[in-house]
């Protein structure tokens, strides 16, 4: 069978990184020979291809084993540290190889077991799924209230889902998922403290802070503390709940404002 040998040889000998290299003794397969003999060869594993060279310095490989549809197992040869590459296709010959020692044998068996294209494809697909799941849960977390040091109240009424996707994942660890006493949502000039698993409620937004002095903004006596401490942790708040929570806050403030208007306050 023809093969693009020149390209194959080039791939075998070029300086693209190899997955594993080393000397192994390869059992010589002879039909009419009664004894078993081994020949020391230089082996290079690249991807799903196991090349072997007569010498380490040889410019061309002697042979190539395609590691698809095969198993790698320790074998009970007379030789110590022997392992075999056997193919599902029963007609195909097996390769019996002998390593220099226990560590070398284990390293080769491990490397060869993972070498197939199919295995690599499996790993990539698994990672693809993980990436998809990670971005989904990231999007879900984004729906929950977001706190940022520069945001004012208005910002929280905007759709958190429109946040840029490039936000660093560290914001997730930034106290959002550790709030047990809940609340969240209200925007603060200050970020939550970074003490792990904070137990105190989140700090009040700027307007309420200054309410104590009663100089600016409306006081918030009508706002019960309970409203600031929503029992629902941020990461489980869905967008509609979020709006409800804000909605309550707004309703109370409006009521207060209207009360003040009635009383003739400016």
């Amino acid at each position, binding site marked *: 069978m*023809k093969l*693009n040998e020149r*390209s194959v040889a*080039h791939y075998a000998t070029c300086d693209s990184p190899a997955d594993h290299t080393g000397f192994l003794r390869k059992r010589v397969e002879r039909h009419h020979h009664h004894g078993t003999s081994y020949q020391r060869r230089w082996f290079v594993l690249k*991807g*799903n291809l196991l090349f072997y060279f007569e010498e380490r310095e040889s410019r061309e490989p002697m042979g190539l084993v395609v590691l698809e549809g095969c198993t790698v197992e320790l074998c009970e040869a007379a030789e110590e540290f022997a392992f075999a590459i056997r193919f599902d296709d029963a007609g195909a010959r097996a390769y019996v190889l002998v390593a220099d020692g226990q560590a070398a044998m284990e390293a080769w068996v491990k490397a060869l077991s993972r070498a197939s*294209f199919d295995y690599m494809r499996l790993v990539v697909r698994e990672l693809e799924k993980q990436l998809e799941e990670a*971005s989904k849960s990231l999007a879900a977390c984004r729906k929950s209230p977001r706190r940022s040091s520069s945001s004012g109240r208005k910002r929280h009424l905007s759709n958190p889902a429109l946040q840029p996707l490039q936000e660093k994942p560290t914001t997730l660890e930034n106290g959002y998922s550790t709030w047990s006493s809940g609340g969240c949502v209200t925007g603060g000039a200050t970020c939550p403290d970074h003490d792990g698993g904070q137990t105190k409620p989140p700090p009040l937004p700027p307007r309420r802070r200054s309410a104590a002095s009663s100089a600016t903004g409306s006081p918030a006596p009508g706002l019960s503390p309970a409203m600031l401490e929503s029992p629902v942790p941020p990461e489980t708040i869905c967008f509609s709940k979020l709006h409800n929570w804000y909605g309550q806050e707004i309703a109370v403030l409006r009521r207060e404002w209207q009360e003040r208007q009635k009383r003739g306050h400016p």
Partner: protein
Amino acid sequence: LRAGKGLSLCPLSQPCPAPPVPAVLKKRLVKLVVNFLFYFRTDEAEPIGALLLEHCKITKEEENVFSISFIEEPERKYCFECATEEQCQEWVEALRRASYEFLRRSLIFYRNEIQKMTGKVSESLQGPAQVSLMALGASRG
């Protein structure tokens, strides 16, 4: 051979030379199996030959035609003519993704993306040895 994707193409049996020479088209059954492109005479079960698809470039040529060339001999092109342009595009896409090296790069890409997103190194099935080393190199560089 495990069954791979099989489509019938009409490959040119020789490289496309510079001076205009009447090209000889030979009809072949072509099968992509992992990173090898096997080709068969249409009535035979054993392949005539195979092309290892590592360090190669897939080029869309004129209508219905694509070529494969290898890094160490870029002027030598293995040309293939397909039945339709659509098939041709399918083949080009499939062949570009067919190398082990492509999978390796994909693996590194996904690992990096996951790490960026979650801050965690993925605990997936452990990939081949060289991937870890290459990933380290990438982050250092």
